[in-house]
């Protein structure tokens, strides 16, 4: 869960410039890990976007008769078999990508926005603002991620929006701390000192120089956070914090609801589980190789 917390290894500030971008791109292309990650992510996104056209059956209607002791497994007609209500499991796994993407992206954007705002406040103003913001961030980080998310989600009541906000809130302090660190480092860098000395206005320095240059590690962290957001949403669904509508094909929920069939139809939980792993692995691989590509220190 608090993977992202453990993994908040700040990326060293970058000297920017066209050459670095090109350099990074070259390194990415040559890295098999990056290619594997990119392929998985592409697969995931394509499936998510095209689910309605790719899926052979409706996701929420029974298409065959099942009973608790006879749930047909994979066949030519139903690639992943039927689920416990007689719906096409393959269709539901495909649709699940769409829900995962929505949950992942929305919670990431919310968390990033909140975190960036906090980090920007702290980094740009420094002084007591910085002190207060960072204490709040410390405080938020002192609760283990999953428990924090549980608390927030429970407070907001049930529903997918509660889940997304909960994940966003958990990620906020990570982004805040990351951005602040970056901005502090940038502030002391040569080009900012140069800009200040030639009389460029403070706001322009922050928005025009410091912020854009600090964003590289944020992008890396964002990619990694997408992976954790997908896994975390599944974890919350597993604990019963999920949409009110159980017919929504959401991977975590599908996995949680079909654990009962461990002895009679064990594959029912395996498909959504593997789907989660594929999506999360894709973003993790991509994020890790992005980090390596963008950070000279990792070039080993």
């Amino acid at each position, binding site marked *: 869960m608090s993977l992202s917390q453990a993994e908040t290894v700040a990326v060293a500030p970058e000297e920017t410039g066209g050459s670095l971008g090109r350099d990074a791109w070259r390194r990415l292309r040559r890295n098999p890990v990056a290619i594997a990650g990119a392929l998985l992510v592409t697969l995931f996104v394509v499936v998510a976007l095209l689910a309605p056209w790719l899926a052979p059956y409706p996701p929420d209607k*029974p298409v065959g008769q099942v009973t608790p002791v006879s749930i047909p497994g994979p066949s030519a007609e139903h690639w992943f078999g039927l689920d416990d209500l007689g719906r096409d499991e393959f269709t539901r796994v495909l649709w699940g990508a769409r829900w995962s993407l929505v949950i992942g992206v929305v919670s990431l954007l919310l968390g990033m926005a909140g975190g960036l705002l906090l980090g920007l406040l702290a980094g740009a103003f420094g002084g007591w603002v910085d002190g207060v913001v960072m204490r709040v961030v410390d405080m938020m980080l002192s609760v283990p991620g999953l428990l924090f998310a549980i608390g927030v989600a429970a407070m907001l009541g049930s529903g997918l929006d509660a889940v997304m906000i909960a994940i966003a809130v958990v990620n906020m302090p990570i982004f805040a701390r990351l951005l602040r660190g970056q901005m502090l480092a940038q502030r002391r860098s040569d080009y900012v000192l140069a800009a200040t000395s030639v009389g460029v206005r403070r706001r322009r320095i922050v928005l025009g120089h410091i912020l854009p240059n600090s964003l590289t590690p944020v992008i890396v962290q964002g990619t990694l956070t997408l992976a954790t957001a997908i896994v975390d949403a599944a974890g919350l669904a597993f604990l019963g914090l999920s949409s009110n509508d159980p017919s929504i094909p959401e991977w975590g929920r599908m996995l949680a609801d079909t654990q009962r069939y461990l002895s*009679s139809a064990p594959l029912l939980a395996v498909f959504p589980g593997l789907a989660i792993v594929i999506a999360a692995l894709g973003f993790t691989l991509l994020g890790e190789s992005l980090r390596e590509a963008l950070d000279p220190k990792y070039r080993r």
Partner: protein
Amino acid sequence: MRRYGMPLRRTMAVTAGLVLVLSAAACGGDEETPGTGGTEAARGSTLIFASSADPAILDPAFHSDGESSRVTNQIFETLVATEEGGTDVVAGLAESWEVSEDARTYTFKLRQGVKFHDGEPFNAAAVCANFERWYNFTGLAQSDSVSYYWVTVFRGFAKNEADTLGKSLYGGCTAKDDGTVELKLTEPSAVVLSALTLSSFGIASPKALKDYKADEVSGTAESPQFTGTFGTEHPVGTGPFKFGSWTRGDKLELVRNDEYWGEKAKLSKIIFQPIEKAADRAQALRAGSVHAFDYADPADLESLKSAGAQVLERAPFNMGYLGFSQRTDIMKNQKIRQAIAHAINRENVVKTKYAAGAKVANAFMPDSLWSYSEDFTKYDYNVDKAKQLIAESGVSNPTLEFCYPSGVSRAYMVDPAGNFQLMKADLEAAGFKVTPKTSPWSPDYLNSTQAGDCPLFLLGWNGDFGDPDNFLGTFFQSFSNQWSFRNEEIFKTLSDAEKEPDQAKREALYKQANTLIADFVPGVPYAQSPSFSAAAKNVQGWVPSPVLNDKLASISLN
């Protein structure tokens, strides 16, 4: 079947290749079932029963959940009991009884020579002390969540502290002599005798009740706390088992009562181990670490059988229904209610989510109960008819708020979320729009359905005793927020039936009530299902009771 853990006679220390530091004892021999061939004889007669949760409390008067009564059924006994495996009333602590003609005086002849586990004598005075205790509950002990069954059966207390309580049916208890009890009622009732089989009317030692402060309840009505230790450490009754020890979340032990008046238990000990999920209980049984469990998931039955376990069936004495709260205009509309009844493919729900042996229910009581007959209106699955009824109802774009519970599984509703999804798909096919709403079973869901907040809700009922009053009377005898309708004809028929001493007349009244109810469509009954228990091959003599009154004393292990 492999097993682990138990007598480690042939223990192998397995050091899994990847686990460097841990070495663990696992996978013992290949004994087929637990308890066999144990090195100690005592182990051979200890039954491990996987329950689904810890009991709430072991004071019969204060519990209303199945896991508590499963335990108290072994420790306490009632004046009258249910026959083994059925619902007929048979002798319990009372050897015989007489009911006066006006059904207001019940005379019980008590069994002689019975002793409580603490050595106190069981006699008429002790029985009356129990009745007086129940009748004189005050404060929090009067609330529904504490003394549910007394309130349900006897309606009120000596001094009622809430307006919702009625005048008590209890009119006094007299010890005619040491072995004769006379129970008086303030009104005739044909139901009390069956109701006295409920485990909640188990007779406890008056001395222990007093010594261990059974009546001390604090906290709030919604979340009562029992401060005395009677219900947690010192439950004292007359049953074939005595309380041993209880570590919450881990295990609860009962030991044989060697002074028992009747046939003594064959088991020397019963251990209840809480394992919440049915799939985990099934796995524990297949692995041989428990002997028996209840509430088997229909999905596990095949694997249990193929692992050599016995699957025992409890005759269906329940029904699951889709209820309507007629608080909103749309639910007051009879055409809409009929449309819903026609829209739902009950056959498919039962087939998909219930075990073989489950049936579609058409009435608000099981078809095995006396007075049931099928001459009332039935609603077949007919989407066109449903659409037509919606059109006739005058409601355009009907939207239904539909509540279902989480965190619960019952024989009549194995997978509530599954039932919900199937019904939602059916309702949508007929042209309804469905808004889902869910909450945890206890307390939120039960509270909100009881308050009538849910226009559509999934509920059900497992019968407590073999009388139609326990079904129809519980639901429809008077106005309740849950259903939020007033239909005086139904109300009157049912209260007449409750008071009627003549069996033939009662039967006619319940038939009439079923007809009225079917025409009115207060909800849609859809399932009645057997429930399943499983036991290891060597467990013998377990007779599951349809009203969950299992007496585990008849079990032996070989």
